[in-house]
């Protein structure tokens, strides 16, 4: 019974998303006529999830919290095993209740709000996917399953920021969010790897018990790896830049992703991995510091923001920073309460964002005098402490340059090696021939007619090409030219290596090999 209920938490929204997606592929839920069906499926799934969570809540209240529930093995290889398991302790249950109810309310809100939008079906598909993903994150019994949820949430966030993908700004912000989150994912994967190697299991209870046996540095390393996805997903400094730009999607999606739920996923992960912190207390001050920095960043930047959604976003960042601060100080209980109440309040507030202008009776209370005239600080806050341009300068541009170089390498080296011909214009080559008519020379060395003939013809041409390229040219002048080319390439590679980014890449590659 419990197993069934657990399944019914996560699965329905994911299935609903799949159903809507299939409908979109086959065009069966297109346009205005398809809206009702789509909305019913999505909401039905969300209701089912909520009911399952509520009945588990009831069970927990009346009997006991179900704790760890294992449904089966997902992957197994030698001693390493990944289970399909769920952790249903009070923390998970309360967060699952929160997620399921807020997602349901938001979906219901969106039925009217997105009526007649071209992206109606897409929106509900993504929202369902997100509901499933968030529920998976908070109920997952092990790191790997949580990671799956983590990824799905990331993908749905990317898709919703790019809701209006015809606008450059939206597409670019979506990519930025996506890339930032990939950095976090790398950390998550590393943490999974480290847990497997040092603890031997990915189950939350095993991590709790197993962490006791870990050395300080091992626990610290796992934590550091886990911190990366926390920083990225909850948009803490220094990864805070993406979330303020993520407000390109429809209002309800901004509410549920960035105001209310997804932004708290990092904090949840921190609370979950609390046992590790006890093993590595020296990391706590760092965490507190990160939280405090984020809170200050959000607070100061928020003071200068002039559009409603961004202003709310920075207020959210501030509070998430405070939650992380609380975690760093070891006040997990407080952080959890803060998280839940904050999520509810922001959902409410973000959904009312268009009305703030009518609800607010006057201008916001101005900042105190001592702050008002600090021009430099004001400008820093207005420019959001340049986190975005800094990330551009340090990460994006070098990466982009790298890609360009590889493209050039492809063009100049690989294509030629493979033998893709250079294209020249028919006209200019005709002209080069000095007006000699095109009929004077046959197209290939052979000419034939009929199907069989043309088959043979192409075969002959192929052999001819092979011969000419590799055999004839291979000797004599061909070889010499080849060597000259090779020299050129080596020279280019040396040039490239003299640029710092390649040196860096080389060092990184070496490190990877050594490790």
């Amino acid at each position, binding site marked *: 019974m419990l197993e069934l209920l657990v399944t019914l938490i996560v699965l329905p929204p994911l299935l609903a998303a799949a159903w809507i997606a299939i409908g979109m592929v086959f065009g069966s839920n297109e346009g205005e006529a398809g809206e009702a069906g789509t909305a019913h499926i999505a909401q039905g799934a969300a209701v089912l999830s909520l009911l399952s969570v509520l009945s588990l809540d009831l069970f927990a209240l009346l009997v006991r919290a179900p704790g760890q529930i294992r449904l089966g093995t997902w992957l197994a290889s030698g001693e390493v095993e990944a289970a399909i398991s769920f952790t249903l302790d009070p923390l998970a249950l309360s967060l699952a209740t929160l997620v399921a109810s807020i997602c349901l309310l938001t979906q219901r809100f969106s039925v009217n709000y997105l009526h007649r*939008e071209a992206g109606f079906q897409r929106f509900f598909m993504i929202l369902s996917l997100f509901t499933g993903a968030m529920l998976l994150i908070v109920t997952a019994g092990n790191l790997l399953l949580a990671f799956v949820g983590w990824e799905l949430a990331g993908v749905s966030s990317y898709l919703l920021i790019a809701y209006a993908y015809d*606008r450059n*700004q939206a597409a670019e912000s979506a990519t930025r969010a996506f890339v930032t989150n990939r950095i976090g994912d790398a950390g998550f994967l590393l943490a999974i790897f480290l847990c497997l190697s040092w603890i031997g299991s990915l189950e939350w209870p095993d991590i709790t018990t197993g962490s006791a046996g870990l050395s300080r540095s091992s626990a610290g390393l796992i934590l550091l790896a886990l911190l990366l996805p926390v920083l990225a997903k909850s948009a803490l400094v220094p990864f805070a830049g993406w979330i303020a730009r993520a407000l*390109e999607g429809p209002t309800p999606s901004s509410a549920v992703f960035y105001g209310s739920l997804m932004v708290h996923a990092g904090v949840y992960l921190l609370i979950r991995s609390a046992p590790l912190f006890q093993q590595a207390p020296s990391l706590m001050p760092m965490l507190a510091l990160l939280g405090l920095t984020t809170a200050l960043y959000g607070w100061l930047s928020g003071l200068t923001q002039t559009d409603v959604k961004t202003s709310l976003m920075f207020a959210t960042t501030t509070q998430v920073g405070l939650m992380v601060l609380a975690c760093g100080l070891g006040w997990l209980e407080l952080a959890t309460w803060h998280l839940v109440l904050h999520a509810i*309040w922001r959902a409410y507030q973000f959904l009312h*964002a268009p009305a703030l202008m009518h609800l607010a009776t006057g201008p916001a*209370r101005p900042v105190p005098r001592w702050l008002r005239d600090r021009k430099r600080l004001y400008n820093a806050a207005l420019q959001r402490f340049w986190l975005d*341009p*800094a990330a551009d300068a340090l990460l994006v541009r070098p990466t982009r340059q790298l890609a360009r170089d590889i493209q050039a390498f492809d063009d100049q080296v690989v294509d030629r090696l493979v033998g893709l011909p250079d294209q020249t214009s028919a006209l200019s080559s005709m002209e080069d021939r000095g007006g000699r008519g095109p009929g004077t020379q046959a197209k290939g060395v052979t000419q034939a007619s009929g199907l069989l003939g043309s088959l043979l013809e192409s075969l002959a041409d192929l052999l001819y090409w092979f011969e000419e390229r590799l055999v004839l040219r291979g000797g004599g002048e061909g070889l010499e030219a080849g060597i000259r080319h090779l020299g050129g390439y080596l020279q280019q590679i040396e040039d490239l290596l003299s640029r710092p980014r390649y040196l860096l890449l080389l060092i990184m590659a070496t490190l990877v090999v050594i490790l």
Partner: protein
Amino acid sequence: MSEHTAASTEIRKRIRDAVAHLEHVLPGQAPIKDFVHHNTLHGLQQLPFSEAIAEARRVTGNRGYLPPQRFRELLAEGRITEEDLTVVLDQDPELQADELLIELEDRPLERRDIYFGALAHPLQPITGNQLIWHIQELGALVWLQSDVSHHNRERLLASARLSGLTTELEAIADLWSACLSALGLEHFILHPEELVDLAPEHAERLLSDASRDTEEQRSPLQQRIRIEAARLLQNLLDRVGPELTLRSLLQQLTGEDLLDDMLPLIIRQLASFLDQGVAPWSTPNKEAGFFHTWRELAKSDLIQVFQELHTWRDEIDSLPHDALEAIIAELQRIGLPRDRWTTYLERLALEVPGWSGMVLWRELHRGYEGMTAPVAMLDYLAVRLVLERLFARRLCRRCWQVEASLDMLRWYFRRNGFELLARHNLFAERLPEYLAARVQRAVATSDLDRGERDWVQLAELIWTWRRSPSADRPGGHTVYSGAWPLFRLAQHLGLAGTDIRALGRRGADVIFDCLAKLTDDKAGNLWLLAYERHYREQVLTALAGNHGRGRWSSRDTAPSAQVMFCMDDREEGIRRHLEELAPEIETLGAAAHFSVPHNWRGLDDKQATALAPVIPNPVIPAHEVCEVPRPEARAQGATHARRHARLEGWRQSLLQGSRRGLLAPAAALIAGAPLALSSLIGKVLMPARFDRLVSGLRDRIEGVVATGIELTAPNDSPPATPEKPRLGFTDEEQADRVEALLRSSGLTYGFSPLVVILGHGSRNQNNPHASAYNCGACSGRFSGPNARLVAAMGNRAPVRALLAQRDISIPAGTWIVGGEHDTCRDNIFWFDVEDIPSALGAAFEGLQQQLQDACLLHAQERCRRFASARSDLDPAGAYQHVEGRSADFSQARPELGHVANACAFIGRRSMSRGAFFDRRSFLISYDPTQDPTGEILEQHLLTNGAVGAGISLEYYFSAANNPGYGAGTKVTHNVTGWLGVMEGACSDLRTGLPNQMIEIHEPMRLLAVIEQSTKMLTAIYRRQPPLQELVGNGWVQLAAKNPDSGEIHLFEPDKGWVPWQPPDTPVRRVKRSIECFAGESGPCSPALIAAPDFCRE
């Protein structure tokens, strides 16, 4: 020297003038709280409508008509008929529609047929690949196109049979070859891969052709490309100013949009500078002006470090102190010739029209909402120019190692013409994929010292491709731009191959001449005229049919009650239902400021708000009126004020405090979260019930206070002025205003015992554009207070005495009641009911009930337009639906506003009473029999006409081209600085109406029908330049209905009054108006209602 000074003064003056002129091209929308409908192209109103649209398209690039595809759908839906189009084509002298082209077997072929075919079917040129797709996938040379009408299909096949072609295949093949030969073309099907490069035969022909050409063209290929590149360069540089900015020039050459980098910088600073109260921390030292503060802040901007803008700091330090000087310096630095400076600034402003428009609006409305910081367009333009050049410099350095000036670019590209050609073709024109990929790669790797050789090769490839048969070439007929459209047209005209051959080359030329005449704007205009004609005919036919039917053209007996509504088109429905329910009631319509513009301060208001019209010119009230507790409720009033202040304080600290500060928000949201959760659940699951619950709760806590208004000032008060508004009106002033209202609406005699005056407003949630749903005559606010005020004035004995002296005697037994109609929720709120004399108590209750019933019926009529309302709702169910909508914060369409507004009737209600106009008509009461001099009508036209035209034209442009003139979808809107809405977190301010407000609107110009003789109208027209602009330039359509004979004349700007002939088809007659709309969700045509006693039958 003095000459130099004179020149520099002159250029400064020219720049200032150019900035002042920007008012004509930038959106003139006020900050969104004060949104009032106005003509989107208000700045071009001095031009005729079609010319203004063309001019706006030239300047902003926005199309001003519905897309042709939409018009074709309307044709298919029957909202436009073939007859409408034909009439419109025949009326246009330019088109010479009846010129005979050829006499065919069975009929003459005239230009008209060509025009019709070209309008009704898409005939645009296609590309080589599209043609292949048409031929191979759609069988274009096997069957007739599927969209050819049955009639034309038969005609074509019959004609082909005459020449011995029996099958469809033969007929169509023959037609295709005839089309080709008529244009002297030949066509062979190329495989897509053959389109990659020139076929050898073509290359050969091109080269041999060249030998016959002029000297220039005989030169070698590279030479020719060089010449072309030089021409392109000259052309591009010449267009900088009138058409391009440095940013758009570079975008055409690099594909990079400088605005992407600049926009966040500009928007953040500008929004902070203009902010009206979102951010707690706004720009320090605003008083110095935007340019100055920007410069100060930019110095410490680390963007220079991260974005590699190396000279940023120095350049900003060296900027002149004055914005105008900075503009001049910048324009000089980019090397733009002086005569193009002003056009350049216009282009620059138009790149971000929403923000530019807002800067200009705030410059023109200094001191708006008490904000003192100077806002200046020059400051803003200077910042834009400086930033543009700084970012352009970085780009130019990176790409070509040159400075960002036109001279340097000219110098560089004179030497690198091949690169110019390749880049321009990639980024500004269209290249096939294989070429695009290569050029892209060349561009991406250009920093690896790519040699000129590559560019030469690319330029050659492009040059060749452009001469290949698959490229779209300008000039001359090709298979794709000539034969194909002709082929399509022939099918739609039912012409077979023989007919085309008979036409010959000359006939084909005439056909293409016809097609050329139908430019986008011309075609759009013709469509619009036909669209308008269709509905106009219906409206005029109904009006003509209704002549003499409506009651109370003169009040021989007094109606049981008189109810005056706003002239708003949304009130047509409820008036009609009220009249159907209670034929003994008379309804009237007036602009709902009701001639009492004033500053209103409600019981809970902290400050007074002006309830006065702003169109055509803002009326700044000189009087203030307060709502106060009645004497017997003073104690409750005090309690209410205290508790309200406390509740409001809590609410504000929750809403505002939770987004400002560090720890305070945490405390606020912990307190607020439980409330928020219950509120969310309530609002999402059962909005209407929750709304009632909350307002009931609030009433219980704060207490309901009986209020009255303080409207009277002592008669010896000093005169009231806008600068020093006075509390209350003197008796004389009150009598003036009441008289103005009664005279303009013709209610000067035959008063009923109860006269009701209803203002209106729309209560809805979560809607930044809320003002647009409220009363346009009260600058987008609720006009209930005006109704209450004018009613209170009219009930005062001294005022009635004064009125009696002026020949308006309101009987002692008459009482005037004020109220407010909520157009979203469809209910009526009554004011000062306590004061109604007890003798009228029963009558008032009856009237209330009748109005309530009318509201229900009206709600039912409105629900037919809502997709989420069931189609079989009864009145009570419909009422519940609209109530829920109004309380629902997830509704992006709480109501539909003025959607579908199309006509305005200025005259007695009797002209339209008894007919159904689908809530599409403004109804303005005016009695021609009481207006011998025309003065009253003149006022109506100048004020109410302008309001109606403003609403209609705003809807027109937002609906005709929402991406260009409207605000896009509400779903991603983000309110900024209380100024307007952006899409997402960083975009231009979107002006106009959002998609949700216009999606079912039928964009056509307002048809004003005036009950007055053409003679008097002509006289008024002659003496009023604003009317000559509005009507003479065709921004509204005007018709006159003679009060006595009922004859209708249409006003045509170039011809004057033209008598209108009713068509033979009679108007539909129905018993009740519900028969007109039951089961319909689209627009319904006018009809005559034959309810008993409703009208004289």
